[in-house]
């Protein structure tokens, strides 16, 4: 059918947009990053030196790579039980009821809070709270940043998961119930396996959000350009250092920041690929 071919062609070209966009972005970032790599070579990725003092500039990305990985993974770990509970609540236990829509709206609200507001709230409210628990001197640090990240990414994980979970076919579930399974057993043996792909996709979405989050993290992480020594010590992430330093940066420093952006691109790709491998192993 001619019409079908046109439709298929249209769909294909929209996918091209994405391809061209990513290629263009990588190209632009790479050209900006070349001066830094030319100056520091491969050492850039593995060095944790960061001295912006004019005259003796030394840049290395390791401290930020460590900070980003730590905060994002920790945020995901904290987020998983929360998102799981919320999506099961909304799409299984109380599906279709008033309280489920209330909960869903509340979680969606979390997505609507601007990241800068999370930064402010974290700075003015969360930080003193953490200081009170005595775990950290000034409240800045990896843990605080991960906590705020976790709260920020919960709606991404929950929204999509609950949609997927609610779409699991009722016949399959009823078949399991008719065999005498308890609700929990139906969830673990029917719902989750069939929704697995969507659930993992939602967590990857959430992780992606965490990897790139800038404003909220930068207000709470303490901005110490070193590899964090412990859970409650300050550190810095790739997105945060770019946001902080970009306004005033120029020349070699600017190139170093763009190079960090490129590395973040690569790390996100790696983490995603790893996630897919994990799915394949469990599916």
């Amino acid at each position, binding site marked *: *059918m001619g019409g079908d071919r046109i*439709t*298929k062609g249209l*769909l294909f070209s*929209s*996918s091209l*947009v*994405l*391809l061209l966009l*990513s290629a263009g*972005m990588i190209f*632009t970032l790479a050209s*900006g990053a070349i001066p830094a790599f030319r100056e520091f070579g491969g050492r850039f990725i593995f060095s944790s030196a960061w001295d912006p003092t004019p005259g003796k500039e030394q840049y290395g990305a390791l401290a930020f790579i460590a900070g980003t990985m730590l905060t994002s993974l920790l945020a995901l770990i904290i987020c998983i039980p*929360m998102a*799981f*509970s919320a999506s099961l609540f909304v799409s299984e236990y109380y599906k279709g009821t008033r309280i489920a*829509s209330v909960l*869903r709206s*509340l*979680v*969606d*609200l*979390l*997505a*609507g*809070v*601007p990241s*800068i*507001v999370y930064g*402010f*709230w974290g700075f003015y409210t969360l930080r003193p709270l953490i200081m009170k628990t005595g775990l950290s001197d000034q409240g800045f640090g990896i843990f605080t940043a991960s906590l705020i990240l976790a*709260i920020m990414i919960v709606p991404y994980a929950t*929204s*999509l998961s609950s*949609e*997927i979970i609610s779409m*699991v076919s009722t016949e399959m579930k009823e078949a399991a119930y008719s065999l005498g399974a*308890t609700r*929990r057993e139906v*969830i673990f043996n029917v719902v989750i396996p069939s*929704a697995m*792909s*969507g659930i993992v*996709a939602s967590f990857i*979405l959430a*992780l*992606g*959000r965490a*990897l*790139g989050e*800038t*404003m909220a993290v930068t207000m709470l992480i303490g901005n110490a350009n070193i590899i964090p020594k412990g859970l409650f010590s300050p550190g810095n992430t*790739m*997105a945060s250092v*770019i946001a902080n330093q*970009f306004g005033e940066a120029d020349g070699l420093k600017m190139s170093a920041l763009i190079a960090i*952006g490129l590395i*973040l691109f690569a790390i996100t*790709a790696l983490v*995603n690929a790893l996630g897919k491998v994990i799915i394949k192993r469990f599916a």
Partner: protein
Amino acid sequence: MGNILADNINRRSKRNKRFKGLIISGSIITVIPIFLIVINLIIKGVRQINLSFFTETSPDTFQAMTATANGEVIPGGIANGLVGSLIMVLLASALAIPTGLMTGVYLYENKKKRYASVIRSLTDVLQGVPSIILGIIAYIWIVKGVTRGYSALAGSIALAIMMLPIIVRSTEETLSMIPVQIREASFALGVPYYKMMIKVLIPCSFSGLATGILLSLSRILGETAPLMLTSLGSPGINLNIAKPSSAVPLLIWDFYNDPNMVSMVWSASLFLMIFVLSLNILSRSISKNRKYI
């Protein structure tokens, strides 16, 4: 024999109840932060919100200083930010929603192809790009390249790129959940491809698609970093997309950096949140009024 069965059932039923309790407590913990944040925003911000908040442009530091010194409400509002945000979000949506939906459908229809998994991976990676990098990219492509100056167009492009991956992935995943029989029944009846998409696939997955679009809108409404490098900001209302424009998150950033206007930060944030909530409620009621799923 009977005892083992009874024990088994007992054990399973206890586990069942415990699990339910776990889920409920987990859900409660999940929503505690939103209460804390909203209460905080309301307490600090509700004072500033009145009609002029929506119709007047942002105040200057002197007005703010005198008002705070006198204990009054700071005059002015966020009208320039509102209009700017609206224009940029509409433009970004016009660019991102059709492209995202179509790409999502393409990925769903061509699951097995190698090319499709490349696109899928690229989408996931795009999702993780920090918004400031997108701002840098839009600065280089549009501000330097196209409009030769800061512009709302550059801001819209940065926002559109941010929306794209969320829409693509949620579309694909939602479509995957539709029972394949529905699609096949439609083909069996000889329905042309595009009609099947519009009349069958999309209505069936409407709720999920709306969720994805809503999520992407919520994401971009609050973004500051990319807009600083693209639309810059503006003291007045600007309808020309080739010129700089204000936006609500930009105003929030300006208020934060001004020593006298910190209280406006909370009111503007409160407004933003209420707006997103209304968007959510709106989309849910639309989904509910549809006849199928």
